[in-house]
């Protein structure tokens, strides 16, 4: 929204209407996001999301970096889907260079992506519970997330920003313990996930706070460009893993979780069910990782042939697209990311208008926003 337009709205407000700023420093915006909220009592009249507080110009920076270097920047977009972000650039470059990635790397990439999805959904679940006023959820979620981060740390030395998947395959081979620890975690988490339902899903207050709240129809979800669990909560079948399989997703059996209600509850349920599906995928792959090289032989300097390359992956939040325009140089001429959160954010005025402040927090929690992914 333009500054002048905003001023217009601010000055022309009705009697009894007032403006508050939620953010950029507010516990429930999950980062530096700012909502300018117009309220009438407790009722939300309209809402203007302001982003840009953590804009770092990643797309522009990428124009002066080699493809191996770009990997390290993609981590910093959606830091909770770091593996998938690395993967999208790697896949796009591999497509351009026409490299065949070893099967081993494909399998490991898929496992890592699903582990990352679990990790992300666990953190989302924790924060969502806290948004609704139940801080206990936070500790249950983080307790289990810690186990995944430990696996990550052992295998490639970092817990959040991995930069592990790179053009051609993987930076290194996995740690010898990786498979056993992942299997242990699967066994552990299958027992712990029902606890999430006990604590939050079955709660009367929780059901009343989320059911029928912020309903979005399938058509609207499509026109707003919602993807990921938010889109699937409205019945929009948009799982890239299913429709355009990459890595090893064509070798595994899994369901695409779809709910038709389109409310906050549906978006919640999609993510809970996705955690079960992710575990299914990992369990199908973890014992069958083929032996062999972990990376294809790559030239030290990658020069992408002249042309345009396009790659989509499914992150924990939706569809991430990398669009590379190359002039045959070692740098991309232009690199654009279509990040899921950017589209998911701007539906919030449509969802939250007419509800109460508490509902705004619940709805923005159910969209699972990661702010650096919006601003890039």
């Amino acid at each position: 929204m333009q500054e002048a337009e905003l001023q217009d709205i601010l000055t022309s407000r009705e009697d009894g209407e007032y403006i508050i700023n939620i953010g950029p420093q507010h516990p429930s915006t999950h980062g530096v996001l700012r909502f300018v909220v117009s309220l009438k009592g407790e009722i939300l009249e309209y809402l203007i999301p302001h982003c840009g507080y953590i804009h770092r110009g990643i797309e522009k920076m990428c124009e002066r970096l080699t493809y191996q270097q770009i990997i390290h920047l993609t981590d910093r977009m959606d830091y909770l889907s770091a593996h998938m972000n690395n993967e999208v650039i790697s896949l796009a470059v591999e497509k351009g260079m026409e490299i065949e990635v070893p099967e081993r790397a494909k399998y490991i990439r898929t496992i890592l992506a699903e582990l990352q999805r679990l990790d992300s959904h666990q953190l989302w679940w924790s924060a969502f519970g806290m948004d609704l006023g139940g801080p206990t959820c936070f500790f249950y979620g983080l307790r289990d997330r810690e186990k995944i981060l430990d696996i990550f740390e052992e295998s490639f030395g970092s817990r959040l920003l991995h930069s592990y998947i790179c053009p051609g395959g993987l930076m290194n081979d996995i740690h010898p313990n990786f498979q056993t620890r992942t299997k242990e975690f699967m066994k552990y988490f299958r027992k712990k996930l029902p606890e999430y339902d006990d604590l939050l899903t079955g709660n009367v207050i929780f059901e009343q706070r989320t059911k029928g709240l912020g309903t979005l129809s399938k058509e609207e979800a499509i026109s707003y460009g919602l993807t990921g669990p938010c889109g699937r909560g409205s019945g929009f079948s948009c799982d890239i893993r299913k429709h355009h399989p990459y890595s090893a997703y064509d070798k595994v059996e899994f369901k695409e979780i779809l709910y038709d209600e389109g409310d906050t509850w549906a978006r919640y349920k999609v993510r809970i069910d996705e955690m079960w599906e992710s575990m299914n995928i990992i369990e199908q792959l973890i014992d069958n990782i083929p032996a062999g090289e972990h990376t294809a032989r790559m030239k030290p300097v990658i020069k992408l042939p002249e042309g345009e390359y396009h790659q989509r992956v499914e992150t924990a939040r939706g569809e991430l697209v990398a669009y590379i325009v190359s002039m045959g140089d070692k740098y991309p001429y232009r690199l654009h990311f279509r990040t899921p959160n950017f589209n998911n954010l701007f539906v919030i005025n449509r969802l939250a208008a007419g509800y109460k402040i508490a509902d705004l927090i619940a709805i923005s929690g159910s969209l699972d926003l990661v702010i650096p992914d919006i601003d890039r």
Partner: protein
Amino acid sequence: MPFNIYDFSVTTKAVDEYFKAHMSPTWAFVMELLIVGLVFLIVYAIIGLYLVLAERKVCAIMQNRYGPNRVGKWGLVQTIADLIKLLMKELIPVRKSDKFLFNVAPYIVIIASFMAIAAIPFAKGLQGVDFNIGVFYMMAVSSIGVIGTLLAGWSSNSKYSLIGAMRSGAQVVSYELSVGLALLAVVIFSGSMQLSTIIESQANGWWIFKGHLPAIIAFVMFLIASTAEINRGPFDLAEAESELTAGFHTEYSGIKFAFFFLAEYMNMFIVASLAATVFLGGWMPLHIGSLESFNRIMDFVPPIFWFFGKTIFVIYLIMWFKWTFPRLRIDQLLTLEWKYLLPINLLNILLIAFLVLMGWYFK
């Protein structure tokens, strides 16, 4: 009471006589007031501080954590350290705030809870004032606190505070009805509003057992409504840290914030002790009908332990659902009160009146 050694009125009478013998009646009165005031101040501070620690420990257990365990054994001194930190914090003045009301609000809140504690019977003979309308007094005094909350929100010159204060106002005014009606249940049973008489009437069994189902309903109603009245989770809409950052005390710091904080915990203690007094027999030991030997053994436990044991039990219940439930929304909160709690309470009162009229309860 077979054990007169547990009767505190012996001690208090001795002190009274000592003062009367040594000085004029006016001075004796002043001295007694001073001593009582000082004792209450110390008890108030200690209970408030250690409830904070207890809450941190309970919530840690609920959340798979250890809680404070570094300062002192089991973190026992942690709460003192926090108090010192709070006392040393800068008091940040807020621009364009109403200075007088801003400063006076924390005192109103803390005075309200301090006045309520005066009527709590801690043990036999250990009670600040034994009003003949004790229940009514507790209700009246504890509802003064909301004025402080409203003033804090209004004078802070912050919209977050204002929303929190308005929520708190709507909430306390509504839930006070249910608290009153739930207490009325026992007032009908025991036929008195005096807290000491209510306790005496439970010598052969607590009202929650003697009053059949209606008393249990009244106890549950009291627990729910009073949790809402003291602005604790899942009814902590006035603070609602995920929506309003800290609600009505967003702009407060240092000792003024500490006052709000302390008052919140003391209100919890007051509510719990009222529940223990009215429904669970206060300092009365657990007596079961004609089991003489059992009753004798129970009498050995000093009344003050019974009182604090029951109060801690109720406090644990209140903490338990704070740390396991998500927060309600404001409209759901008011719906719960006006559409469910209040009608159930009214019917319950009618039922109890009928029971008492027919004499269909354990006497």
